[in-house]
């Protein structure tokens, strides 16, 4: 019973670290998906007094993915009843050319300003409109959320690692008699501590399995995914193969590294 309690303590601690990492990964993926959506929706409007071919815009900046002209026919059609044909023809001749420019990624506010300045250097371009303000606020909020989650994940990992270290010292104490008897017969440190490594590895595997099941259920039943879809974000919160392998790596890494630490630097009181 006591041994089971010790196992559960380590499994819960490892699960907490893995869950905080997985939450960070999920938030990162959500923001990446939102960035893609913003990028697809986002475009810069350029007003020029001469016609441009798409390759001319592309050569101006590596950020520009493609461009398309905005037709003025619809505006002119609306004015048909209010203006004479002669004035309309004159307006058609003097009306500037409008272009919609799509970018290959969602730019930061600084990048938008740089792009605007770059485009405006061309004497034929009269005006550039970035429209970044609306998207930018939500995007900044999401980045803030991501940073907060990152800070929390690091803090949780640090505190939990200390708890795991304490737990392993307890294990070391529990197995001290066995380890000292083995030492009397010349067992090297790694053989004496094999029991600690075995416990650490088994608990790391159990913690990973629990994490995978928990996130698989969250992903499968989709309570979060439905909410994200409602705001137009489509994202896979848990990639079974990649995420479970990464979690197993982290769990094994932490538990084995901390076991190494207590084996190499035993307590002065031991």
């Amino acid at each position, binding site marked *: 019973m006591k041994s089971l309690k010790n196992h559960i303590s380590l499994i819960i601690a490892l699960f907490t670290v893995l869950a905080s990492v997985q939450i960070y990964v999920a938030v990162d993926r959500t923001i990446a998906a939102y960035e893609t959506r913003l990028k697809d929706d986002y475009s810069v409007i350029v007003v020029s007094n001469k016609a441009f071919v798409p390759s001319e815009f592309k050569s101006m900046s590596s950020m520009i993915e493609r461009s398309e002209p905005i037709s003025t026919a619809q505006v002119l059609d609306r004015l048909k009843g209010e203006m004479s044909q002669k004035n309309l023809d004159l307006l058609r001749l003097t009306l500037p050319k409008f272009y919609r420019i799509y970018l290959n990624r969602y730019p930061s506010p600084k990048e938008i300003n740089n792009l605007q300045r770059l485009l405006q250097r061309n004497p034929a371009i009269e005006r550039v409109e970035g429209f970044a303000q609306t998207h930018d606020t939500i995007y900044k909020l999401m980045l803030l959320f991501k940073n907060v989650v990152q800070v929390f994940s690091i803090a949780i990992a640090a505190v939990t690692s200390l708890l795991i270290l304490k737990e392993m010292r307890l294990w070391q104490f529990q197995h001290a008699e*066995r380890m000292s008897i083995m030492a*009397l*017969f010349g067992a090297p440190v790694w053989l004496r501590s094999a029991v600690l490594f075995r416990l650490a590895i088994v608990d790391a595997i159990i913690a990973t399995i629990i994490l995978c099941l928990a996130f698989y259920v969250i992903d499968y039943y989709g309570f979060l995914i439905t909410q994200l879809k409602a705001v137009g974000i489509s994202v896979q919160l848990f990639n079974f193969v990649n995420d479970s392998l990464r979690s197993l790596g982290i769990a094994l890494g932490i538990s084995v590294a901390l076991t190494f630490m207590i084996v190499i630097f035993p307590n002065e009181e031991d």
Partner: protein
Amino acid sequence: MDKVIIAQNLSLSYKEFETIISKASFSIDAGSFVFITGASGSGKSTLLKSFYGAIEPKQGQLSVGGVNMNRISTSKLNFLRRHIGIVFQDYKLIKEWTIEKNVMLPLIISGYTSDVSGTQVQKLLGHVKLIHQAGKYPLELSGGEQQRVAMARALAHNPILILADEPTGNLDEYSSSVIWSLLEGANTQLKTTVVVVTHHIPEELNVPYKHYHIDAGNINEIA
């Protein structure tokens, strides 16, 4: 004759100013049977501990099996201990392991295959008359039986030296006689050096032996 243990001006102490053994010089021949006696607290167990590196010489020189015990490295100490069999008064068996696995311990440490160690363990458990108890755990056995297991463990890897600290201190007559006959057998048949720390030298012993007595930190050979 080769010497297994050589001590020159050996002083041992636990604390800086409390010397337990003072400037002792003696040697133990390979293949000999040696008793170390002395009153309680005289330092006989401390001396035995210095032979397996549990305590370092404070002054002087100590060599065990050709290994200098002064500032011995961990790897050298482990190597030496793999050639020594130790028997303690309190048995020091691993209680989570079966009797069979306990006896196998030195063979596991020395890297023997399970086939070899299995055969050796069966043979030794036969010698100590515990073959039928192989699957039991130490706490299921009596004190005498546990000490016989510890004896089998000490012999498992054919050590060059057996160190026994009060091996029959808590035992009944039958278990004591088994232990003494095993120590005798190891000494006469395998030519293993045996060093026993005890209060009383058994009368029924059939091997020639040397006797050292510790008194007030001095070690004297008794003729």
